[in-house]
């Protein structure tokens, strides 16, 4: 366990979790920022699990796991926020508490003024959820039938339903998939179908748990474009957990990082890069084997493997000058840029934290 208390949240602004740049309230930003009651409010929320762990051949011991260990944040209506962290950090547990699936062990939690744990079904009408790994659709039914069932379950007025469905079908390219049973859809198709299902009832808030995991590049782009549109057009508040920093980069101005059940960062993405000093990597394929590339400002060669070399440079910096510097002096065959890993970013944050 880490030392330190619950308020080690680090952000660009010292005020911490509550304050945001008015701009960050998103396109629709209703209401003033600052001390305003957020649309999503968490105050010292905790979730403690008791697990039985094997200790020796037969003996088992009860152990306390603090999956979420005192988290506080506010998200204003209409914002689009990234919620990231390594596996097992407590992201999904938080989302489960926000939807009322799990009952918090401590702290106070409100979504649109409602306590999710107490009024789960009432809240459900105002919330859309997409679980990346599990579908909310009916496995054996055609997509269209699943939507029809959603319409009746949520009592969506006919006109609104038709309008929303048409919009989703158009933007997510679902027309051909409507008669196909869900189990026959590819992962990317299913995810698109799931996102549409989560939006048919005009939810005020949308939780997305790893919405781009396992998707191909085209599906990812489609999903991101759609989410941006929904957020801008309808002012839907979006909370996105992801592993993919690109999701965050393209969608969210604000990002929260959770690790070991604690919020370790809350602020803009730029700030995250600065704090984490994370690096992107330029992978260079040269015509032939050469000694490590030298003299590129802001970049250093981290690995050489035959004609292929890896150059690391700060994530916040543009790749263009690095590329041109390399291209000027070396015979290039191919190039690619790798985004920084979330795990990487977070481990760097730690390195900073523990340094004297």
């Amino acid at each position, binding site marked *: 366990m880490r030392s330190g208390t619950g308020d080690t949240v680090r952000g660009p602004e010292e005020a911490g979790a509550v304050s945001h740049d008015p701009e960050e309230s998103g396109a629709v930003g209703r209401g003033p920022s600052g001390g305003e009651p957020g649309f999503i409010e968490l105050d010292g929320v905790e979730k403690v699990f008791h697990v039985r762990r094997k200790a020796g051949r037969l003996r088992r011991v009860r152990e306390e796991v603090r999956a979420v260990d005192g988290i506080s944040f506010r998200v204003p209506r209409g914002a689009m926020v990234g919620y990231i962290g390594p596996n097992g950090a407590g992201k999904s547990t938080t989302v489960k508490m926000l*939807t009322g699936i799990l009952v918090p062990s401590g702290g106070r939690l409100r979504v649109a003024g409602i306590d999710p744990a107490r009024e789960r079904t009432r809240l459900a009408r105002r919330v859309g959820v997409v679980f990346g790994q599990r579908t*909310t659709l009916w496995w054996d039914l055609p997509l269209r*039938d699943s939507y029809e069932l959603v319409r*009746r379950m949520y009592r969506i007025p006919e006109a609104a339903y038709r309008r929303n469905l048409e919009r989703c079908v158009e933007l997510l390219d679902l027309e051909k998939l409507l008669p196909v049973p869900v189990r026959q859809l590819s992962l990317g198709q299913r995810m698109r179908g799931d996102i549409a299902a989560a939006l048919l009832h005009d939810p005020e808030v949308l939780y997305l748990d790893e919405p781009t995991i396992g998707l191909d590049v085209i599906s990812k782009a489609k999903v991101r474009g759609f989410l941006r549109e929904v957020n801008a057009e309808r002012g839907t508040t979006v909370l996105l957990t992801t592993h993919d920093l690109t999701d965050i980069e393209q969608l969210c101005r604000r990002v929260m990082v959770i690790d070991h059940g604690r919020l370790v960062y809350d602020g803009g993405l730029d700030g995250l890069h600065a704090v984490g000093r994370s690096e992107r990597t330029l992978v260079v394929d040269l015509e032939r084997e050469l000694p490590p590339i030298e003299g590129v400002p802001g970049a250093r060669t981290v690995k050489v493997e035959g004609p292929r070399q890896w150059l690391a440079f700060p994530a916040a910096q543009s790749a263009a000058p690095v590329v041109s510097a390399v291209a000027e002096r070396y015979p290039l065959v191919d190039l690619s840029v790798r985004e920084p890993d979330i795990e990487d970013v977070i481990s760097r944050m730690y390195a900073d934290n523990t340094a004297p």
Partner: protein
Amino acid sequence: MWALRSRLVEGLRAYGLIVAMWTRSTLAYRTSFLLTALGNFAATGLDFLAIMLMFTHITALGGFSLPEVAFLYGTSGVALGLADLVLGSMDRLGTRVRDGTMDVLLVRPVPVFAQVAADRFALRRLGRILQAAVVLGWSLSRLEVDWTPGKVLLVPLMLLCGAVIFGAVFTIGAAFQFVAQDAAEVQNSFTYGGTTMLQYPPTVFAKDLVRGVTFVVPLAFVNWLPALRLLGRDDPLGLPGWVDFLGPAVAAAMCGLAWLAWRAGLRNYRSTGS
């Protein structure tokens, strides 16, 4: 009270919606539906075939004739069949908890119980009911009973109460799977095991076993006790006569118990997430 009633209405409505959806999609593959329904019919028919084979060697089992055993068989079969039709997919709850799809049910604005109960609603289960009903019909035509209006009424009443009691057992079994996800088979001992037991006369079994299914898991109220009254036979436990009519009360009590078990199970899930 008002809240409870509106939840009940909501639940029934959601149940109806999901069932209608499944039925529609089942009927889209008519041949497959007919074949599996026929399969269900045959599957349960085998039990009765075994009983008939036994009766090629004997004239009475535990003092009961073939039509009398058939009456027990038919009543327990129809009762279980009805419960199975309405709540049959509940034994998949453990699988849902394990693969995480339980969470999906919890984010929808309708009661979880209705969703679990209606999940994969299978019309083919009518096959089992039909088979048991055929046996029951045959036995009724052969039984020598002085039919009074009361006795006539007792038959549908026992079927209904029996179905409710079995339904409660299904629910309690499912609630148990919130805690032990792989324990689906335990439930089978009580439902399918129970119905197998109820197919035979109580006189066949050891008294302790009969006591067990009377006082512990009150399956005896599904058909044994009312049937003994109907057939004019003595209760092997020698209970007072009015006990035979406790079916509805027992069914109601079992429902209450099932409700508590379900609530406890769901609460446990929502605090542990698994």
